[in-house]
């Protein structure tokens, strides 16, 4: 029960702080889950993230898996709802107010201020995930190849995930 309560507190706070999407909170999730609560290792954190990416649906479903790993079905439900509901209630309320402020100057200023913070948080997320995933030089090389390939081509992300998984399976390790 204490784990479920801790999950709710962690993810409800991050729900309000997830600016520009759920992935920007990955550094904060890693800090709470790996370094403060010691619920899993950094490598396990990345593995759960990768399993969530391999399934269809929004990126935020990794939250469900963190909850599952910590406290089973109750943990999965608690983490998912804690991460979803606060932001969704806010969205429900703001959906009707938007027409009133979308053309205001302060709205454009806030948005212009959010973009570079989102970029920095995503870079931090990518950096921490690569560090967790690069268990040896071959895994690091594979992550670098996917990074370069994804920037250089317009292939679907699923193609890269499949290729990386097969490279791992094919005795690359």
């Amino acid at each position: 029960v204490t784990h479920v309560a801790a999950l709710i507190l962690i993810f409800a706070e991050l729900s309000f702080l997830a600016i520009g999407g759920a992935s920007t909170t990955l550094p904060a999730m890693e800090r709470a889950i790996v370094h403060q609560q010691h619920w899993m290792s950094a490598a396990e954190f990345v593995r759960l993230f990768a399993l969530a990416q391999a399934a269809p649906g929004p990126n935020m479903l990794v939250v469900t898996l963190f909850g599952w790993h910590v406290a089973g079905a109750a943990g999965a439900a608690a983490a998912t709802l804690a991460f979803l509901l606060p932001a969704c209630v806010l969205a429900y309320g703001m959906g009707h107010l938007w027409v009133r402020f979308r053309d205001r100057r302060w709205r454009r200023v806030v948005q212009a201020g959010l973009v570079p913070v989102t970029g920095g948080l995503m870079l931090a997320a990518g950096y921490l995930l690569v560090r967790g995933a690069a268990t040896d030089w071959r895994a690091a090389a594979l992550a670098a190849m996917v990074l370069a390939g994804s920037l250089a081509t317009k292939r679907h992300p699923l193609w890269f995930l499949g290729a990386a998984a097969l490279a791992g399976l094919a005795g690359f390790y």
Partner: protein
Amino acid sequence: MPPHAEPIRAEPLRLGASALFLAFFQAGLMGFGGTLPMIRRVMVEERRWQTPAEFNELLALCQFLPGANVANLAVIFGSRVCGIRGSAAALIGLLGAPIAIVLVIVSLYDRYGGYAPVRHLVTGLSAGAAGLILATAVKIATPLRTSPRALAILAASFAALGLFRLPFLPSLAVILPASIALAGWSIRE
């Protein structure tokens, strides 16, 4: 047909909860590697519930608000066309199947993760997923490279959360107001 020739709707669109559920269920189930393109296809191209301009407007709002963008989109669009029942139907439709699938995947991993081939597969998958997120970050950061203001803020948030692993809320409480103040100073009418 050019965009300006689209007929203007006489009255606001109304939809039933089951139609919303089905549309978002389809988008969630088919949305590999990000659901947003699939939601756009289902809502704009297949069902024509929204024009491309209306969809972009809705998306701008959802990116402005905190939380998962696609969940916000389901809640707001659902509430506009069908009230709070619409919000619930769209959200449950969007997340129901993916949550079930992801729980099946993690159960299989819990069970068979000890076998060497599964372990190697997931190690490769992890490296790939990490590389993809880093690529997304680079794509967000690239258009900002001409603005010293944006680069400084980007570097500060990367250093705070990525390198020094400072607590999230205090870091944002400093960086976000600074970034908005700088943006207000550089955006003048």
